[in-house]
């Protein structure tokens, strides 16, 4: 430890011996670190938003289905447990939020147009806490209970169907005997969502109304459970799995929406690649700086060796110098990134490219996310790679023969 302080002081002094070069290098590292973190914050924000939007539409972090439902989401593949049995198992089990729902493909027809939709038969009170629909931001009204006889459509779908609040539409699907199951509904509300695709895809009706229409008694298509964090669903998954048997399938949201699940996994990989790419550009400057720093003090290195410093101490001194340079540069870059991301966390309006963004499921507002894990990853990766990149010049410095080094002009 004593020697570490001796070497650190020398390294720090040498760092500022050529302060102009050090400042240029620090600026490069700081800008590189800022770019790593800022770009990651933008991408992280976009992907988080996509996932959150996607999870809220699924909705649920853990879901129960019939084992065949995910392959064939028809009315025949219903959960083997009816409403009463579900209440008995999950009602007092301490879940933050849960709800059961009917979810089947259907066709909605106005007097002018028809469209394929996902029919959701819900208990609106049970889903209020996690629904992607803001019940208070609905044109008209949202459903009032599971027996509500109205339908709530997306605003975009209403446009397409050329219908509006107060008019009637027909919802048509199949019952368990593969007979047409249809019913006329009055449009009682139009919901709004971040993306047009969401507004076009769903039709909400009361759960019992849907069960009556589909002639499925009091059975449901899925049961959804929502926790506090979509990234950490294992505790809920294990709890739910312990309460059911093999007659149903328990899934994490990443298994239900594999696209989003894969995207979340990809994000971390992307982050690492991005950090490494920027570091590779930085490393040329770093190594060049160290090579020059060593080259211009060969005599002094020879002197230190002559006075009794071991080669390993010279190696340590150069490495500490490199680590100091990186640490200071990273610190400046981190602060810079924080200072530029924080004011933007309220959202960046990118509606000018909204259609393009929606093509891959992103909304028109980008919310950069200053994630401390990303900052730590960027810093740790740069420090480790910087250490490795510095080994070569440091090793060469430690290999000088004192008698040769000390006579260098």
């Amino acid at each position, binding site marked *: 430890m*004593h*020697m570490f302080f*001796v070497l650190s002081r*020398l390294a720090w*002094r*040498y760092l500022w*011996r050529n302060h102009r070069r050090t400042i240029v290098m620090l600026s490069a590292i700081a800008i590189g670190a800022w770019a790593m973190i800022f770009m990651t914050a933008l991408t992280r924000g976009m992907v988080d938003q996509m996932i959150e939007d996607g999870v809220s539409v699924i909705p649920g972090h853990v879901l129960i289905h019939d084992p065949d439902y995910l392959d064939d989401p028809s009315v025949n593949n219903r959960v083997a447990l009816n409403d009463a049995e579900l209440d008995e198992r999950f009602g007092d089990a301490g879940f933050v939020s849960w709800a059961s729902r009917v979810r089947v493909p259907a066709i909605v027809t106005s007097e002018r147009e028809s469209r394929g939709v996902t029919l959701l038969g819900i208990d609106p009170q049970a889903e209020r806490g996690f629904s992607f629909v803001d019940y208070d931001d609905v044109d008209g009204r949202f459903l009032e209970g599971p027996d509500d006889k109205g339908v709530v459509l997306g605003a975009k779908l209403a446009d397409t169907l050329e219908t509006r609040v107060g008019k009637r539409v027909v919802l048509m699907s199949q019952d368990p005997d593969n007979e047409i199951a249809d019913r006329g509904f009055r449009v009682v509300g139009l919901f709004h969502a971040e993306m047009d695709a969401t507004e076009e895809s769903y039709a909400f009706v009361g759960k019992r109304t849907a069960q009556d229409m589909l002639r499925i008694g009091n059975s449901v298509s899925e049961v959804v459970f929502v926790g506090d964090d979509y990234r950490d669903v294992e505790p809920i998954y294990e709890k739910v799995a312990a309460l059911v048997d093999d007659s149903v399938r328990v899934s994490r949201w990443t298994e239900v929406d594999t696209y989003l699940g894969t995207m979340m996994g990809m994000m971390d990989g992307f982050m690492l690649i991005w950090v490494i790419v920027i570091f590779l550009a930085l490393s040329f400057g770093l190594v060049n700086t160290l090579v020059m720093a060593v080259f211009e003090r060969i*005599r*002094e290195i020879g*002197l*230190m*060796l*002559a*006075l*009794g*410093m*071991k*080669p*390993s*101490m010279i190696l340590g001194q150069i490495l500490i110098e490199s680590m100091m340079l990186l640490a200071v540069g990273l610190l400046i870059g981190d602060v810079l990134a924080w200072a530029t991301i924080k004011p933007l966390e309220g959202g960046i309006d990118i509606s000018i490219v909204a259609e393009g963004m929606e093509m891959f499921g992103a909304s028109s507002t980008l919310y950069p996310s200053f994630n401390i894990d990303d900052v730590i990853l960027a810093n740790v990766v740069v420090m480790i790679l910087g250490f490795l990149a510095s080994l070569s010049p440091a090793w060469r410095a430690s290999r000088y*023969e*004192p*008698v040769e080094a*000390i006579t260098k002009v």
Partner: protein
Amino acid sequence: MTAVRCIDLCKTYRQGDQDIKALDHLSIDIEKGEFVCLMSPSGGGKTTLLNAIGGLDIPDSGEVWIADERIDQMSKGQLADLRLANIGFVFQAYNLIPVLSAQENVEFVMQVQGIPAAERRDKSHAILEEVGLKGLETRRPAEMSGGQQQRVAVARAIVSRPELVLADEPTANLDSKTSAELMELFTELNEHHSTTFIIATHDQRVQAYAKRLVRMLDGRIVGDAEQHAA
């Protein structure tokens, strides 16, 4: 007691197409507490001999002993430990660490030795005062004259009281007054602490202080005589 023993040392450098014999089957014994002056024309081999004795350069053949240790077969790490503990160096071109102040330069060896800060501070203050640099402790080498820098280098070499001091042309860049003061200091250390001095020099004034004059030519010893120091 023998402080330095060199046995049949050979060292050849290649310069262009020529082989230069810097040390040519050279043998010498130096007792503890001797004040030896190595003299030769340029290229005579005195710096090479000093470097071999200090473990800075390894001879092609022969043996180098410091006290009871043979050093020509030691590893770099062992040689570094030996130099740190036993040998003080004064080089011709001052060779101070430019990013450290005068006091920090003097303390440098003691720091590496692991001597506590308070003891280092006391010793460095005392030695800087002894070499006439009191008040200049915080100056960096670039802020001092050549003579002042050389005195810092001397202070650094002797501050931890090494058994052996190797000095290569220590007065080459000093005026006569400073040279005399430096040699007085060496003499005092030699007499009061039995520090062994081996000084390579052209300077006639330095030779006057030596108790033993060793003359070299083409890597060989051609004269070795005791004398009464000034």
